[in-house]
């Protein structure tokens, strides 16, 4: 792409607020996404992901605040922008009686310099499904065709809404590979997902939102590092003699749920060695063992739970309950 990496943000969201009547879907959200990077917009259902993305795609307008895509206003400059973005909807979006290559060729006709439909069909692994209509494709095949349609116009910015939701593992691998390749072509990818595993594996930057507010905005590794704690967690048979174990390790031990234990001490190799030695002496199996580093899922749960608690505390109880119910 023509602009240098990191120079202009491909996507700018600036104090975005979106209201539907009384319900606030997005409340003062700001973040950026850069060219050549995969940004995951992560949040539980109803967090405001779709409202945000649809505003960036030009489907709706902000109640207040501003969004820019490639420096343009997605709503006002819609005509100038649509040739430079690619969109993958979560579901649907394709004529039910059309065949994959027909649809790709049709979309290719809309763009000045489209990708080759045959190559793209091959890239998403649908060459052997050429004779099937959209309605007879499996969910995973439909997702792969939707991804190809998002890429047919050689976009500078790609919006991918839950690209691997409900897909079998091999299809998911293929979609992730295609998305990862976009990075090297300088495409800015904004990925909406509630799949933490996906964000962790794929994204360069993770933007976590809930209740329309920003909770975190950092590379996944940094997010996970920031959540490091001085504790060792392990799984073993329930009802261990935790007093004896605490004596041996010289640290408090708790059984947080049956068979799930937490040692409140830094997970040094010596600590782990002492723990496993004790288990070995008693001929006990070790289910799992986690030290220090948390997964993105831990970070996510911690952030979204504390956000829910603080929202509840801050807002008038009745209003916040109503708001949550109306979102479902």
């Amino acid at each position, binding site marked *: 792409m023509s602009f240098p990496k990191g120079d202009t943000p491909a996507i700018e969201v600036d104090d975005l607020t979106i209201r539907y009547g009384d319900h606030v879907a997005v409340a003062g959200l700001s973040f950026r996404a850069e060219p050549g990077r995969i940004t995951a917009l992560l949040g539980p259902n109803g967090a405001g992901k779709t409202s945000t993305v649809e505003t960036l795609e030009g489907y709706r307008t902000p109640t207040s605040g501003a969004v820019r895509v490639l420096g343009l206003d997605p709503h006002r400059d819609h*005509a100038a922008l649509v040739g430079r973005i690619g969109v993958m*909807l979560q579901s649907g*979006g394709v004529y039910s009686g059309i065949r994959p290559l027909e649809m790709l060729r049709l979309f290719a006709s*809309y763009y000045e310099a489209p990708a080759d439909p045959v190559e793209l069909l091959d890239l998403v692994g649908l060459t052997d499904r050429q004779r099937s209509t959209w309605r007879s494709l499996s969910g995973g095949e439909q997702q792969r065709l939707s991804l190809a349609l998002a890429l047919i*116009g050689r976009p500078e910015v790609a919006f991918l809404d839950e690209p691997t939701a409900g897909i079998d593992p091999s299809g998911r691998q293929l979609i992730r590979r295609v998305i990862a390749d976009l990075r090297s072509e300088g495409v800015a990818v904004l990925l909406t997902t509630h799949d933490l595993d996906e964000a962790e594996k794929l994204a360069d930057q993770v933007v976590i939102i809930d209740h329309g507010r920003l909770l975190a905005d950092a590379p996944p590794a940094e997010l996970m590092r920031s959540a490091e704690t001085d504790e060792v967690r392990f799984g073993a048979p329930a009802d261990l003699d935790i007093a004896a174990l605490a004596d041996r390790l010289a640290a408090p031990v708790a059984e947080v749920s049956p068979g799930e234990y937490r040692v409140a001490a830094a997970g040094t190799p010596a600590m782990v060695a002492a723990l496993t030695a004790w288990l070995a002496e008693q001929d006990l199996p070790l289910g799992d063992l986690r030290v220090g580093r948390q997964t993105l899922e831990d970070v996510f749960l911690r952030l979204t739970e504390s956000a829910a608690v603080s929202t509840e505390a801050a807002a008038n109880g009745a209003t916040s309950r109503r708001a949550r119910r109306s979102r479902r």
Partner: protein
Amino acid sequence: MRALLAQTRTELMLSLRNGEQLLVSIAIPLLLLVFFSSVDVLPLPDGVDKGVQFLAPGILALAVMSSAMVSLGIGTGFERQYKVLKRLGTTPLGRPRWVGAKIAMVLCLLVIQTSVLIAASFALGWSPGGTPVLAPLAILLGASAFGGIGLLMAGTLRGTLTLALANGLYLVMLLLGGMIIPFDQMPGPIGTLGRTLPSGALSQVMQSCLRDGAPSAGSAWIILALWAVLAPAAAARFFRWE
């Protein structure tokens, strides 16, 4: 231009690939034409001795209703329900070219339908009279009126509801519209109602264009033109893309 042509070709291909749409737009009108021209069970207007003389213009009007209202409305309704229209909204195709392709598709369907039905009518011994040069204009006005009604349903209702309503309207407008049952055989108020429907206006106009001795259709032309303007205007006003 490339996008418009590709869009038109796709729209046409999809509607010709769709069995139900072909049934409504070609098979049913053809069946009605052949059956009622060959079997003398329907009443004919005063002064008409041969069924096909009355049926051919009426069935051509029916063909306009089936492609412009039923096929277009149901097809577009499901495209909206399955988010095709939403997805097209973020491509460079744009609404003018999308509408252009829909119009071109209906016109292509009309050419195919009228060719088949006119050929069948001649084979059944039809000899057209009246002022045939005005028939294409009547067909275009009818297509505009019915297309507006089809898109109004497609743009405001769920796909399945559009399907049901379009088929229901098709039957009501067929029966009350003087297409196979002459107005002078209907009780007064029903005939009056029928003549104000777009189907009734179009069938009167088609009779006057294609049959010697048909009543003059001055007021029917006006009613048809009104429908041809108001229905698309309402569709443009109320159509929701999502």
